[in-house]
């Protein structure tokens, strides 16, 4: 403090001059220690973001602007009508609805079924607990193709082809979700359980009122993973939907590629609208999504 008192003004300017000189001696890179880091990250970030940027540009161009050699890097007029064209080519709104409903069914189903089972495996005692849990875990090791044909036959024989129930059915039950929720319930302290039991809580109340609200981090991780999976997956919905108005967006895009594969602006507009909801949610909830994915360690 004393150096800011009146007599020190001269000394002060002398010092700041000295500081300035020292800073110059430090050199450009010492004064900006992160300059190379930023250069590397900006270059990398551009490569990562470029396809999205290019998608946006193409979606607003005319067919000629895109297919010229070389293509024009920016459209002369922004053609928003390409987005309207998507709704002409395919029943996009219905497909969007199918994707949304399938995602909701899958998320709700997984949260309910996996957390109930996870609770039983973590907090209850019954015959065969270890064996049954090991059996469920072993399903994690099996790739989806090994289930797919019989699953298809079940859905077909139940008359659920081309329905949201058929698309959602297998995804509602998840070995991974059960594992995640079991871990969450295991981590809760036993005192909570004892206290609730002394208060005369039934097992259902114990689960629903006491324990489940305490597993929020795992529930949100499970929700995030399930939304990504349900909204984005292609193979299963491709197999169980044949009618355009019953398809989720991923199947619709894959089909459009075959039928309207050269209408690039329209196709890019459709692709952008199909992935927009998940991207927007991700950008808004970035921190939570990243925590959720890191928390689970798996997709």
């Amino acid at each position, binding site marked *: 403090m004393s150096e800011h008192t009146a007599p020190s003004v001269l000394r002060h300017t002398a010092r700041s001059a000295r500081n300035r000189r020292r800073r110059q001696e430090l050199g450009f890179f010492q004064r900006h220690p*992160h300059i190379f*880091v930023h250069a*590397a990250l900006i270059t990398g*970030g551009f490569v*990562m*973001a470029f*396809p*999205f940027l*290019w998608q946006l540009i*193409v979606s607003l161009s005319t067919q000629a602007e*895109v297919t010229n*050699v070389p293509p024009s890097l920016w459209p002369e007029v922004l053609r928003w009508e390409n987005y309207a064209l998507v709704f002409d080519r395919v029943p996009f709104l219905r497909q969007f609805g199918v994707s949304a409903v399938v995602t909701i069914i899958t998320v709700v189903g997984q949260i*309910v*079924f996996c957390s109930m*089972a996870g609770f*039983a495996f*973590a907090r*209850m*005692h*019954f015959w065969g*607990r*270890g064996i049954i849990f090991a059996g*469920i875990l072993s*399903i994690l*090791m*099996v*790739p989806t*193709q090994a*289930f*797919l*044909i*019989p*699953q298809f*036959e079940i859905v077909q024989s139940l008359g659920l082809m081309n329905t949201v129930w058929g698309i959602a059915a*297998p995804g509602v*039950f998840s*070995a991974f979700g*059960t594992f995640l929720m079991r*871990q969450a319930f*295991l981590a809760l302290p*036993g005192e909570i359980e004892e206290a609730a039991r002394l208060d005369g809580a039934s*097992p259902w109340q114990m689960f629903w009122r006491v324990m489940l609200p305490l597993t929020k981090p795992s529930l949100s991780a499970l929700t995030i993973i399930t939304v990504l999976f349900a909204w984005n997956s292609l*193979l299963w919905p*491709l197999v169980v939907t044949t009618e355009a108005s019953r398809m989720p*967006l*991923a199947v619709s*895009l894959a089909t459009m*590629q*075959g039928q309207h594969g050269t209408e690039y602006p329209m*196709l890019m507009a459709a*692709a952008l609208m*199909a*992935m927009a909801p998940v*991207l927007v949610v991700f950008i808004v909830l*970035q921190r939570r999504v*990243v925590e959720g994915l*890191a928390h689970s*360690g*798996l*997709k």
Partner: protein
Amino acid sequence: MTAQTESASPAGVAGPAPADRPRRASARDGFWPWLFLAPLLIGMGAFYLWPVVQTFINTFMSIGPFGGGEFAGLANYRKLLSEPEFLRSVLNTIIYTAIVLLGVPIAIVISSLLNRPGLRFATLYRMLFFMPYVAMPTAIALVWRTIYNGDFGILNTFLAVFGLDGPHWISSPGYSLAALGAMGLWSALGFSLIILTAGLQNIPADLYEAAQLDGAGPWKQFISVTVPMLTPSIFLVVVVTSINAFQLFDLLFALMGTSNPAMKETQSMVFMFYEQGFIINDKGYASVIAIAIMVIVALFTLIQFRVQNKWVNYV
């Protein structure tokens, strides 16, 4: 990470058991556990457990396009081994996986750059790098299809600036697999970054202080502190990324299209499964492919777990 927690705490299987619990605790909760388990067990049994058995049975059947199969012995297995097409698809999948795994070292560097203390705009960078991972693969592949176009694609336009004449990436065999791999790497990078970033934040800061006192510069610190301490996360990333890469389907299907002449040379195991099972409708043969995929993925994962103690440091 999950596998480690499992093996590290075998007691976890039994759950925390208070001391005053009676010895024969197994029946204490009566019918309640079964009520909690019923929906999941019925669903898992119907949609997973039984189907995997059924698939195995199907491998011995010859199933026509309209269902109704007859016993065919080992015919499907013989067909699998005699057709070079399947071997080719296995090879393609392995090459694709290898290319995607090249993203892991890149992710290690990027995540340690992103985690430098006091770095500005870190959130923005992180968002850019994570975005491809959450975007719908089918939609993304359509974008790359435009970028890769041999005549007017922006990639070849860019290469032309340097006087290079780019190939028709998607329709020429060989190039198509490389193009697919580059896209897969780009799309999987975000996952590696998420796991590695979480791993980096668990490295104690005093290790870096100690390294600094010993006169280690940033590069030396990266090589002798960051990478060794990160090996458990790197292992997880390698295992999960390769399991996901072995499932290559969405990106391939949407990038190439079913009528692409280069598809035969580029197709993955899963694509071949889909084509045999649902286009050609030979469900018996498709079942053999499914079982083969299962065995190959299991072998590959087993090898990775076997060699992990050669390079993974658990502290």
